[in-house]
Each structure stands twice: as C-alpha cells, then as structure tokens.
C-alpha cells in the first residue's frame, strides 16, 4: 500500500508555472526598490495635527460656553441671572420666581449690555426697581461690566447697582434657589446680623435686603455724597469690590432711567 501511495504522489510535481511565479515573486522582493514612503512620518504628524485641532476646538467651545461673570437682576418677585463668558456674550440664563416672558427674549449669545437692556425694558411694572449685581473673579472686569451697564439706557425701570467679585458663590447661591446677587447680599447682611439665615431672605425683595444692610451698617448713615463712587478693591481673589452709585441725601440707591 505504501508503495502505491508513494508512486501516486511522486507523479505530483510543481508545474513550471508554479516555480516561475515563485521566482518572479522573489525577483520583485529582492530587486525592486522600496517605495519611498512618507507614510511613516505623515501619519503621526497628521494624527498630532488632528488631535491638536480637536483639543483647540474643545478649548474654544469650553471657553465660549463657560460663564466667567454673572449679572443678577433682582426684582420684587423674581430674578434673572445672566452668565457671561470671556467674550462678553450671555451663555446661560437662570430664572428664579415668575419670569414667563424672559424665555421669549432669546438672550443667549447676545452681548450682555443688549441682554440686560432687553430684560429691564421687558419689565411691565414701571414702579419697581431692579437691583443689579455683577459677580466676577476679576475686580477690573467687574468694574468694566458695571460701567458698561451704567451707560445703558433703560426705558422705564430704575436700576440699582452693586458689583462684587465673589464669583465662586454662584453654585452655592443656586443650591439655595436664589440668585448670586441676592446670595451676596445675604452674606453681607449676615456679617452685620449673624442671626439671619438664607430661608428668611429667600422671598424678600432685594431692595428690602439692601435697606436692612444699610440700616445695620455703621458707615452708611448719611456720610457719603450723592455722586461718589466708593471702591474698595484690595486686589486679592476673594475681596469684595463695591461700587455704589448714590444720588441725593439719605438715599442709597441710584437711578438710571429716562
């Protein structure tokens, strides 16, 4: 049996074609010049460039969408807080209380001056006044925003200003369900009256909180002239920077309206 199988397989030989194709394959391997390929350099560079562009886009999107300043507009019954990015555009709008009309204003991606003007001019109750608070880590930016808003023309409502630079308090304020401006006012009041708690002032109008602060503060009673800007910026990150516009004797809120 072995011999028969052997002789059967012996007749199977590699055809000439088989050998020729193998020899040609070898010839190509040994004699063809390797293609100069820049692939080995191009791919990592291309990947690095793509990665860099992706990171840049993410940073760009992040820097656009992350607010660095907060402008709070507190009315008697409600509050609107605008988150402003480093390009001076409104990127977040947070409402507290009754603010059904604010959504119709489409404030996002507008310059903060335009947004603040729209919000204030949309108020129907012309007898009320809004308390505006600016919160920003950078005292100079804080001041710049306040000055810019100061130059805005509002139709009806009077606006009080109070700018502060405790930017990190936004999340704390929102966790209590109040605006940053109101929360800063609460902290100011708490320094003067340690017994006060956040639930007490939650539903108080901002004007009333400011009046209580004024009443308790020993330095405020009639000592300042109407048009003084009182600034106290010590330059450290957590220092409050107050800018108050005062007009007339005995009054502690300024008016900016037609």
């Amino acid at each position: 049996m072995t011999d028969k199988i052997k002789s059967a397989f012996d007749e199977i030989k590699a055809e000439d074609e088989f050998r020729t194709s193998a020899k040609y394959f070898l010839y190509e391997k040994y004699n063809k010049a390797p293609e100069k390929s820049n692939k080995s350099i191009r791919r990592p560079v291309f990947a690095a460039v793509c990665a860099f562009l992706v990171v840049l886009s993410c940073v760009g999107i992040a820097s656009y969408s992350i607010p660095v300043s907060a402008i709070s507009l507190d009315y008697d019954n409600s509050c609107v807080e605008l988150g402003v990015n480093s390009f001076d555009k409104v990127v977040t709008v947070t409402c507290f209380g009754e603010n059904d009309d604010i959504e119709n204003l489409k404030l996002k991606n507008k310059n903060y001056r335009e947004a603040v003007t729209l919000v204030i001019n949309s108020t129907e109750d012309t007898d009320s006044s809004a308390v505006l608070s600016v919160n920003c880590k950078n005292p100079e930016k804080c001041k710049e925003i306040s000055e810019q808003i100061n130059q805005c023309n509002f139709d009806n409502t009077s606006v009080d200003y109070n700018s502060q630079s405790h930017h990190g308090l936004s999340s704390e304020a929102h966790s209590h369900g109040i605006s940053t401006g109101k929360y800063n006012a609460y902290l100011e009041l708490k320094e003067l009256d340690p017994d006060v708690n956040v639930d007490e002032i939650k539903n108080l109008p901002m004007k009333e909180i400011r009046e209580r602060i004024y009443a308790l503060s020993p330095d405020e009673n009639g000592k300042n002239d109407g048009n003084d800007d009182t600034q106290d910026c010590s330059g450290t990150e957590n220092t409050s920077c107050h800018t108050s516009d005062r007009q007339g004797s005995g009054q502690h809120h300024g008016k900016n309206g037609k």
Partner: protein
Amino acid sequence: MRSEEEAYRAIEKYSDMIRRICMVNLKNYADSEDVFQTVLLKYILSSKVFESEEHEKAWFIRVTLNACKDVFKSFFRTKTEPLDTLKDYKSEISTESTDILHTILALPSKYRQVIYLYYYEGYSAVEIAKLLKKNVNTVYTLLSRAKKLLKDELAGELYDG
C-alpha cells in the same frame, strides 16, 4: 533577510513538496500559488537557523500547513468549490495514480494530511503528532481509520495479491 541564492535553492528543493501539500489541503491552483509565495516570504524573512536538512524540511511542512489553514480561515474564500483538485493539475498523471489520488483527496482533510505525511514523507506517528500538534494517540487513530477507509475504497488496487 536571507540571500537570494538561499531563496532560489529553497524553490528548487521544496516546490514539489509544497505543491503536494497544497493539493492535499487546498481546493484550487490559485490558492496553492498564494500559499507558496507566503511560505517563501516567511522563509526569506525568517532568521531561524536550521540544525539539519530534516529540521528545515519539517519547518517548511509546518509553515505550509499553517498557510493552508489560513486560506480556509479567510472570510472571502468560497466554501462550496468541488473537491476535484486534480482537474487543476496541469501535468500528466497515470490512471492508476489518478484513482488513488482521487480516493485520498476525497477523504476528510485530517485523514489526508496523516496519509501524506505517513505514507509519502515517511514520518512516524510521533513525528506527525509534533508536526500537526496533535496527540500521538490521535494520530494513531487517524491513521488506522484512514487505512480502513482506503482499504474499503480501493481494496483491489492497494493490496498486492
């Protein structure tokens, strides 16, 4: 990389053996060519130092068997081609040999491999077990079953007298 002379020497020495192994394991000529080129490429790029000619031959058999297995694993290969690979063979074969080869090639591949390695290449069951990475007892079983199948199919042709 091995020299061109070594590569040509390998073609002359092993092309017949590789052709036979491809015939036993594959279904068409084109696949056999691909396998041969794959085996040659592996040989050229391999830096393995062979202890003897037998060692080198065993290496070629092992690599060829693996390359044939890879052909079957390939997703794009059709799996319904007829098993008549002798039609692809381009040289003359005697009628008696044709019958024997047809019968062997009709067996399942596990039997074909052991028959080729045992009866033609002359490897022992132990050596076949090492080449195919199977248990020795499995090889003995395969050989005994393959013999029985061949005896049943080719009773008059394989046995003298």
